[in-house]
């Protein structure tokens, strides 16, 4: 028994070590955001809120954040509607070649994002859509829709089809029975899929970086390109704001839907 406990202890220490390793860069970024010096030291030489002020007054950062949020919202909304409709048709075998269709909808997950990015760059250049916001939005629908389709398909499997049939027998038309019976049952999956889609869009650099026009940028692309010109603590401040936002969203999602079960 004693031996067992000590071995469990070693495993526990290793596990906590790895979990700590996972949080290190996060802590470092937060620390850097409050640091008075441009470069990091431990302990930090003085604390300041200056960099947050710089960021929140920087119109470029604010514009980029705004673009990111709009793009992610619009892409997620489209992915949710189109993904749910397609998943429903596939699940109820209303279309031929259901397996190949599912494969096609999941394919953007397998293709390296950078490859999709450059392919779209050439394609939009040829069709005169380069730097077009609609083109960027369509690209984000393509990269976010697999998460929604996957979540919807797995939620639909758990729904008893006879429930919807029962609603129809009782006089509801197809759309009403879907809306009142199936939709509430797949809602948790839809929320999880939508959250993943939103985060994927908000996180994306390898597709966006090729498609943005010169006058607009998203937040991750802005950080990505500004790091090449040298590290500035304001990047750490923006990142800290993103860390806090992510943490809040994760906690809310967990309380709301038991998010970790859908990962």
């Amino acid at each position, binding site marked *: 028994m004693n031996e067992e406990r000590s071995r469990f202890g070693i495993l526990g220490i*290793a*596990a906590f070590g*790895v*979990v700590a390793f*996972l*949080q*290190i*860069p996060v802590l*470092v*970024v937060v620390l850097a955001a409050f640091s008075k010096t441009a*470069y*990091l*030291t*431990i302990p930090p030489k003085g604390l300041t809120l200056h960099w947050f002020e710089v960021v929140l007054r920087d119109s470029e950062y604010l514009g980029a954040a705004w673009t990111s949020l709009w793009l992610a919202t619009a892409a997620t909304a489209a992915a949710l509607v*189109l993904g749910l*409709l*397609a998943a*429903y*048709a*596939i699940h*109820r075998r*209303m*279309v*031929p070649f259901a397996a190949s269709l599912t494969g*096609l*909808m999941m394919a*953007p997950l*397998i293709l*390296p*994002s*950078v*490859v999709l990015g*450059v*392919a*779209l760059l*050439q*394609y939009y250049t*040829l069709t005169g859509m380069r730097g077009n916001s609609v083109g960027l939005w369509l690209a984000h*629908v393509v990269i976010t829709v697999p998460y929604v389709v996957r979540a919807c398909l797995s939620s639909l499997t758990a729904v008893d089809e006879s429930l919807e049939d029962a609603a129809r027998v009782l006089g509801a038309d197809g759309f009403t029975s879907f809306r009142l019976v199936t939709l509430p049952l797949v809602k948790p999956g839809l929320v999880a899929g939508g959250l993943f889609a939103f*985060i994927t869009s908000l*996180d994306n*650099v*390898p597709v966006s*970086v090729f498609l943005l026009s010169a006058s607009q940028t998203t*937040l*991750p692309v802005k*950080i*990505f390109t500004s*790091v*090449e010109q040298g590290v500035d603590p304001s*990047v*750490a401040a923006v*990142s800290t704001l*993103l860390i806090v936002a*992510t*943490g809040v*969203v*994760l906690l809310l999602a967990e309380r709301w839907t038991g998010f*970790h079960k859908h*990962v």
Partner: protein
Amino acid sequence: MTAGTRTRLPGLVLVSPLLLILLFAFIAPALLMVPLSLREYVPGSGISANWTLANYTSIVTDEYFREVVVRTLVLGFGVTAICLLLGYPLAYFIAHSGPTMRLTLTMLVIFPMLLNLVVRSFGWIALLANRGLINNLLIDVGLIERPIRMMFNLFGLLVGMSHIFLPFMVLMLVPAIQAIPKDVQSAAYTLAASRLRVFWSITLPMSAPGILSGSILVFVLTISALVTPRMLGGPTYKVMATLIYDDFLQTLDWPAGAAMSFALTALTMLVIGVSSRLMKRWGGQA
């Protein structure tokens, strides 16, 4: 027959909006890369009208391209190995802990995964740079006089990318380890097997499907990653994805970039294809 058309028509109506978008913004762009990759690129004047296979052959014959491809593969294997070594103990611990501990640890694993990739990579820059946290600390303590180079080389990319893809590995391993029936392990203990023996001959082989799928996922994500290799490798230490990025945005040698894109896609397809065959065979045996 009428029943068939009646159910098919709304089905097509439901699927077609998404299909049209995929056709327009996914399939067509991917197909148009094929002719692009077969064009000749003339430095100075751009893409010419001549057809050539040179963009593909040079990936194998050109020494620099070969080095980049090999480096990408080394990185893929290295990151996968590190993620397995770090991820397995954590996954094992999570799989065998109580509900509260399991939820807390799972959330701590998911949190960095949901965090913006650019932010995480930036965190590693702050740590590994010449004037970063680690070098400053070592100099202040007096262990070193000049900063150690930890970025723009294999070391930086291995550390940063292992950190970024570790959560994926853990999340694949936990259910695989949980799925092992406790009875088998207890039976082995009853038969006086040592803990190490039980681990080697029961736990490890029985979690092999999880190990394989986690490794495939991490390998594929590593070789196709752009952001972290670019941020931690800079413009000089290149992998396939960052080479493609530079071909399209810096040197404008689009045909070479398109050929390299197909090489990268073929590599990921190959890895996924071989592994799914393996999985099926294992599934058949079980």
